[in-house]
């Protein structure tokens, strides 16, 4: 398409189109960051060197999801979207006031550990990247034949129709 910018109409259209392209990228980036899912493992454990101690009992909720109860040594997970999160902790010991904080997680990390005791003790970093050692293997079983012997085999895939029609 030849873009000439002679008339004001054409100029206006050109600007609007540019704006739309920008909008396209903005929306893409927005859903990319905002929709990005992270799995946060919430940890309530003592430090190895006992530099901090697990909380005796608490309810933790992230981003006003349903809260979960934690006893010392517990670990549970929450799946969240986006990078900025709010954590709310209410303690079983009613004398301690509720704790609220916000934190950000790095965009590129799928799974992290949030250590509540560390956070409460103000030790940085209280969030660490988590790498599951056996993660890859769990998917191994799904593997099916990945190459086809012939034309006909290739189209045998079509008989996976059940899948397709969804019966």
């Amino acid at each position, binding site marked *: 398409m030849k873009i000439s910018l002679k008339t004001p109409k054409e100029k206006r259209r050109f600007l609007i189109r540019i704006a739309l392209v920008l909008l396209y990228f903005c929306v*893409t980036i927005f*859903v990319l960051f905002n929709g*990005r899912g992270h799995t946060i493992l919430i940890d309530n454990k003592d430090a190895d060197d006992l530099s901090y101690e697990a909380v005796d009992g608490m309810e933790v909720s992230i981003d006003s999801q349903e809260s979960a109860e934690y006893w010392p040594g517990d670990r549970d997970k929450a*799946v969240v979207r986006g990078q900025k999160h709010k954590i709310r902790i209410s303690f079983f010991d009613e004398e301690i006031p509720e704790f609220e904080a916000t934190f950000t997680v790095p965009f590129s990390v799928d799974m992290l550990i949030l250590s509540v005791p560390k956070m409460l003790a103000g030790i940085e970093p209280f969030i660490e990247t988590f790498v599951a050692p056996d993660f890859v293997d769990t998917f191994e079983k799904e*593997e099916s034949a990945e190459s086809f012997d012939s034309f006909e085999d290739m189209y045998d*895939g079509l008989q996976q*129709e059940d*899948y397709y029609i*969804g*019966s």
Partner: protein
Amino acid sequence: MSGKNKLGRVLADNAVVILFILLSVIAIPFSGFSVQNILQEMFTRLGRNSFLVLALLLPIYAGMGLNFGMTLGAMAGQIGLIMAIDWGIAGWRGLVFAALVGTPLSILLGWICGAVMNRAKGREMVTGYILAFFMNGVYMFLVLFTMGAVIPVRSATILLTRGYGIRNTLNLDLVRASLDKLLMLRIGPFFIPVATYLVIAVLCVFIVWFKKTKLGQDMRAVGHDLVVADSAGIPVERTRIIAVVISTVLACYGQIIFLQNMGNMATYNAHDQTGFFAVAAILVGGASVKKASLLNAFLGIFLLHLMFYVSPRAGQNLFGSAMIGEYFRQFVGYGVIALSLVLYAWKTRRDAVFAREVLKNNGSSGHSDAAKEGAAK
């Protein structure tokens, strides 16, 4: 024309619809499904398939027949979904992301498809069909060999163990039913995916509205008569390409909607029969190669999927073999496409003869008796 003849014409024009209603009426009691069960399934399937079927409409308006090349759009949608899963984008945002990635891809593919079809005027359908096969090879190359090798893939979990290429089955848990669940309404015993229906409604509005634009009018003109449209200065080839591009983009979105409902994706097969099911559905609804409406699309989805849903079970109960029902529905699917195409080709010939006779009646203007005699024959 006598009344009997007229009735015959009406029957012939709607033969496919009538046939399907008959088949369904026979098969439903044998399937043993409850009405509630069947209706719920139909609600789900309408949401799942409508978008794909509606993607066929514009090329039909533009006189290019049934766009078997819509598979290309489905591939684009799948690449978008792979990206979304790879980046771990959850929920409806994942779908939007997939659609945004798929859009430029499907525009490009649609453009190619339209250009190829412009080189094969008169046999767009078979060309689109083969093009879909051809692009399937390209898609395999892209997804099976370059993803993870050339195209960076973050998440090792979606790759084959050899380190590159996407797994044969992709788990779409992150986005599963995220559109359907966005606004799930419960009416009595039925669950209605309102958000999905809203998206489909928006598309319907778009199509109705598009037909009222200048471009829509041009498309109709091109579809009715390519030569006249060309001589009136309408850019015929460009208009045809636009029709295919829109169809491809819609197919891309349609495939994303379809797959979010299914919840998993056969990376190398999911798109294979997209065109087939959409085409069969719209034909079952009474559309032809040259004429189709929203009503045809929805009626067709309902009838085809009703048949697809009940026939395996009916086959099981009737013949003691589920396979019979399974084969039967595929037979019906292919058969209905063949039948519609045959009926259409036959009808075109009949109408041509009819039109010629009208022309002759007008033209002869009582000049001679012989001509009238000829027209009467």
